[in-house]
């Protein structure tokens, strides 16, 4: 039982604040960890990386090796890396880099360091912030309420399929596809079957969390020519388990729900803006008025919500 949320604004605004409110309302669905995927104002060039290093006593050595790998591919820091440390053994970072010559190749190189330092999101606008603890705790630590953007996802995790670790928290980035993030409520029962297939194609999995699989699975389908709508529909019959997931890209958010209708999702759409969540009482934190809520209670459902006039529904 996890809690998921999505939020879309018509123009860049307090999406971080709203997602924190949506997740605070759903903290009882999973207090192991909380995470946010925020689509900030997109950059024309360069990428923002979010991630963590697992041993802060190795911070200097980690960063030195990370810098070497980065510069080897023709990229460099655009600003000084921001490092966040507290009493935890791990540290978190936010880094802005210029475009590598080949993004996928650079990510593969950087992942050779993933036992020490892990990139958890990469995008022109996507920033994934996740940590152990409840919504307020994570939001306070990482300043999530101050993040400005157009849309994003939130997740409260009750760990069922993998460990309670900051890096096993949601959202998951669809490595190595930039600006794609996912949140998921459910269990995927044919996880290893699909993971083996995708690994044989060269995809890299950094956790044993089944949600990471969905992120890469959907992105791979889209890479192979399916629209998001087609990929979402295909996931319902291809992936086994009980699930409701939301996947975000720069143009909007899509969702899919399994054949058994076991995991809830409701949404309020008003004047082109959206709040979606596992529970209706959460979306009421954003839309307090008694406006109409849409209950996506049935089985085998998909949907796409776009940002502004973005084209995604085709």
């Amino acid at each position, binding site marked *: 039982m996890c809690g998921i949320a999505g939020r879309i604004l018509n123009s860049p605004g307090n999406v971080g604040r709203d997602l924190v409110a949506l997740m605070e309302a759903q903290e009882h669905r999973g207090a192991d960890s909380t995470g946010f995927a925020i689509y900030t104002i997109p950059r024309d060039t360069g990428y923002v990386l979010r991630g963590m290093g697992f041993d802060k006593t190795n911070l200097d050595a980690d960063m030195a090796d990370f810098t070497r790998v980065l510069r080897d591919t023709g990229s460099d820091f655009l600003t000084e890396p921001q490092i966040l440390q507290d009493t935890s053994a791990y540290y978190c970072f936010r880094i802005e880099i210029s475009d590598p010559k080949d993004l996928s190749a650079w990510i593969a190189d950087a992942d050779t360091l993933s036992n020490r330092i892990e990139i958890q999101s990469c995008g022109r606008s996507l920033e994934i912030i996740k940590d152990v603890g409840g919504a307020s705790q994570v939001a306070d630590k990482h300043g999530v309420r101050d993040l400005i953007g157009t849309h994003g996802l939130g997740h409260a995790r009750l760990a069922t399929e993998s460990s309670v670790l900051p890096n096993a928290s949601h959202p998951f980035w669809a490595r190595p596809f930039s600006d794609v993030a996912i949140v998921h409520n459910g269990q995927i029962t044919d996880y290893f079957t699909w993971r083996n297939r995708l690994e044989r194609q060269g995809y890299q999995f950094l956790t044993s969390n089944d949600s990471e699989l969905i992120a890469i699975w959907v992105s791979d389908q889209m890479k192979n020519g399916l629209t998001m709508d087609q990929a979402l529909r295909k996931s319902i019959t291809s992936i086994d388990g009980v699930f409701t997931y939301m996947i975000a890209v720069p143009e909007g958010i899509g969702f899919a729900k399994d*054949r058994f*209708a076991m995991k*809830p999702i409701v949404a309020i759409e008003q004047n082109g803006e959206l709040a979606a969540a596992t*529970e*209706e*009482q959460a979306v*009421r934190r954003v839309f*307090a008025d*008694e406006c109409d*809520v849409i*209950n996506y*209670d*049935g*089985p085998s459902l998909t949907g796409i919500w776009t940002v502004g006039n973005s084209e995604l529904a085709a």
Partner: protein
Amino acid sequence: MSEVVIEVGQRPIREVNEEIQEACKVGRKIRIVNSLSRHNLGVGLPPGAELHFEGSTGYYCGALNTGATLTIERNAGWAVGEGMSDGMITIGGYAGMSAGAAMMGGTIHVKGDTGPRCGVAMKGGNIIVEGKIGYQSGFMAHSGKIIALGGAGDSCADALWQGEVWVTGDVDSVGVDVKIVEPTSEEVAEVDALLDPLGLKDTSRDWRKMISGQRLWYFESRDANAWLMI
């Protein structure tokens, strides 16, 4: 009987429910305002209590009801009236998944549609839905009636036990081990008698009455493949 107004907002639900129970003890009608779809409102209400919810409620509203009358103006979340043994719950809009799950008695009246598994494992009572009942409604219903006036979704009445699902309108598909039978005029009169107090009686309806085919009652694990739906 004077009316008491109870505000929900972001108050702790335990505190709100205690206030509701206190008002019930002195026999006052209760109006719940600003409910914001919060969960577990009005659970375990005593006989004779009267509650009116302005707006929508969250999960388990009216669960374990033992004889109270609840009116919800708009939507109810998942499992409204779960395990209720008596009383009446009226929902003005939509009822989420598992409305009336495992209920043992009383009546739930939904003016809109319901989500999946309406009346799942119910053991008595009646659920009357003016709209469409969702996927797999009536799943393993042991007793009682689900009456849907606006059709039914897929896998209707799947694995029904001794409950009955009555439908007018389109049925997307029926579930496993369902038998559709022609109701007798006495049985139709019984259903009309349930609908009449709600102003829903219409003798011209063409009913489909679904009952168990009883093949699953004697389930043999070696035949399991015959029951796979997906």
